[in-house]
């Protein structure tokens, strides 16, 4: 089980209505359904992932996040979740705004582009970072809007979004040791819990 999914589960109240943007294979919604009795819907555009969700019995709706969430009424969900998809969006800030319109809370995870490996890679090789976590070349990557933890927090401040919780996740030894001390340098993934 992925660490970030466990953290998200802790922040979701039992029996909530949850919308998961870019739900992938539906693992999070399946877990939330079993452990928290959540009624959830996932939005996804990848046909293979959609079929995996259907196999799991997870509600999945084919919808492109770049076309917005205009089909959802204000406050129609308790929580809107988006894991590892922020950096793939055409207009990330508008999607976050929409998430906070549709849901009371929103939970967002994304990879930290300010993590020391990325900084090291760019500083010394002079090329865009390619790693296990982000295995794409700059020209074919679906990740078009990278940010660091600090960038994201500036965005939240500018928009008066309240950060309820932040959890930094790291799987490398050095990251686990230092992530609480210098999160923007050592954290690999951040999980933010926002509200209006």
């Amino acid at each position, binding site marked *: 089980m992925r660490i970030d999914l466990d953290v998200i589960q802790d922040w979701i109240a039992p029996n909530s209505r949850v919308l998961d943007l870019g739900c992938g294979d539906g693992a999070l919604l399946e877990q939330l359904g079993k452990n928290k009795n959540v*009624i959830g819907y996932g939005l996804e555009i990848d*046909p293979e992932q*959609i079929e995996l969700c*259907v*196999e799991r019995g997870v*509600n999945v*709706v084919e919808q492109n996040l770049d076309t917005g969430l205009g089909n959802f*009424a204000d406050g129609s969900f308790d929580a809107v979740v988006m894991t590892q998809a922020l950096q793939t969006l055409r207009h990330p800030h508008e999607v976050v705004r929409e998430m906070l319109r549709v849901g009371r809370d929103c939970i967002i995870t994304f990879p930290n582009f300010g993590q020391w490996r990325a900084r090291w890679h760019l500083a010394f090789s002079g090329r865009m970072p390619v790693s296990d976590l982000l295995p794409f070349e700059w020209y074919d990557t679906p990740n078009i809007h990278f940010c660091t933890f600090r960038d994201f927090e500036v965005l939240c401040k500018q928009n008066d979004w309240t950060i309820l919780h932040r959890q930094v996740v790291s799987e490398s030894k050095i990251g686990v040791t230092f992530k609480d001390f210098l999160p923007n340098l050592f954290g690999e993934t951040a999980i933010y819990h926002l509200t209006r």
Partner: protein
Amino acid sequence: MSTENPTASRECQNTADADSVGLVTPKKQEFTEPLQLACGRVLQGYTLVYETYGTLNTDRSNAILICHALSGHHHAAGRHSPDDKRAGWWDHYIGPGKPIDTSKFFVVSLNNLGGCHGSTGPVSINPTTGKPWGPDFPPMRVRDWVHSQARLADLLGIEQWAAVIGGSLGGMQAMRWALEYPERLRHCVVIASAMKLSAQNIAFNETARQAITSDPDFCGGRYLEREKLPRRGLAVARMIGHITYLSDDGLANKFGRELRTGSFQPGSDEEVEFQIQSYLRYQGDSFSSSFDPNTYILMTRALDYFDLAREYKDDPVAAFANASCRFLLVAFTSDWRFAPDRSREIVNALMHANVSVSYAEIESAMGHDAFLLPNERYEGIFRAYMQRVAAEIIEEGRYAY
């Protein structure tokens, strides 16, 4: 029907026996209890023709109802005789190992009331006059079909369907089931359908009806009594319908501007005929020799009249709040008669009504007809969903003992 995809048709030939329901024989059921219709009239007695595939389990929990579309009927899968040229209309999706897996499910497929394939309809004899019903047959609404289907379920000992499934007009029946008999189905599969027709859709249907009624042989609908048949009108109606069930790209891929006869050579004054012309005429002619014009009028009207949320103050969320089953919705990108946006409206209403739903938008150039044709992704999603339905039946069976 499956000639579009050479790989799929080859597979069909190779495994013709293994994945077909084989030979099937339609059954007839008489109903003597009067049926109150939505139009206010009462049908005193009636017959429903149906087919079944697969075996009903001891819990009677594995039954699937197939609801047919405008020109459909009870013969959805298998063949009526070994030399039957065509299999049932949904043979690609019903059979052992197919998405609607007859080794797991007991499938019921009927001809709706007002149809012309054996169930009581305009071609049947009206017992009060001794003549064919013709235009006097009561107009049908989708809910009338649903109520008659529920009576068939009672007779077959099916308290609750594992799923009610339909495409197009059949999807409307499946949705109506979910609202009228919420406890009697666990899943509702709605393919290439809509909560109500658009003005453009009604316009096409009206043009088709006008083609039929303006044929001099229509005789006000009493053509059977006068031993006539408005074939030309029905053929034109079908041609109009057929164009709208295909897509611009689909027609371009299949026919383009290819000529069947004639040429544009300078000096040639032979009449030019495009391939699409002869194809359409063939479709119209073969349809008009196997379908009843009054039934066509009745079915298109039922389509026009359907409005899922009319009695719920036009609020589809309020309507679907009555549903307690889970839904699968499927639409096809090039379907402009029942466009993906119509399915999205259903999905949005279901999500706001807190009802479980999944939705897939299948890439296809085959237009509305795509719901009948082979398509790898469509099959994959449909199969994955139905396997969940089958798995639930086994799980629930375990709890029961």
